[in-house]
């Protein structure tokens, strides 16, 4: 009997999205914690933006997994761009010290 989903690629991809969200959460909240030393407003803005992106990624990954959405190109771009911005903001904070 052949398995229904050989290698469970959808499940593996969903779990991969979850691990990425977890890594993104850790990095973004660490950045927000560091920004607290600079300004409370900046820290709150970063944390709020990070939370929004995290919720967005979780929803997108669920929709992709269920097959009710096919915007892989857009979702991968959002993740890529926000991670890039995270790095750039942190570089600016380090340079400001």
């Amino acid at each position: 009997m052949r398995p229904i989903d050989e290698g469970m690629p959808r499940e593996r991809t969903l779990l991969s999205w979850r691990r990425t969200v977890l890594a993104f959460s850790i990095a973004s909240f660490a950045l927000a914690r560091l920004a607290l030393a600079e300004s409370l407003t900046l820290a709150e803005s970063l944390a709020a933006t990070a939370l929004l992106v995290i919720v967005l990624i979780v929803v997108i990954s669920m929709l992709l997994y269920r097959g009710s959405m096919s915007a892989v190109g857009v979702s991968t771009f959002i993740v890529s761009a926000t991670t890039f911005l995270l790095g750039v903001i942190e570089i600016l904070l380090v340079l400001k010290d």
Partner: protein
Amino acid sequence: MTPSQTPSEDQIPSEDSRHRAQRPKFIYSHGSEPDPRYTLANERTFLAWIRTGLAFIAGGIALNAFTVDMAGDTRKTISIIALGIGSIISLWAWISWARVERSMRERQPLKHSPALVLLSGTVFAIAVIAAIAFL
């Protein structure tokens, strides 16, 4: 569905028209849909690169946050290098995903990427700089 409710062939969105609706167009307007397993594998590779970038960024943040006994501005320099590499990797991840996706759609061989060599070299360089600074 009764025969009267059956949509005519021109009402059913074709495979090609659904692909045309996807973004970015420079990928989805070319070729045909590859095996979904390869598409998902490409997506997982993209996510693995993003996590690598995030690890670099988290490392840069940690290095900047903790008091580490290093000579001069070494700590700051390593932190900036790690953050810069993390940012570049996150952008590279998307470019690489797009290139592979398009190659797969066009049934072309995948292009060689120098990213792994550069990544290994950077990790080695950071480790050497940090080791020298600690001595």
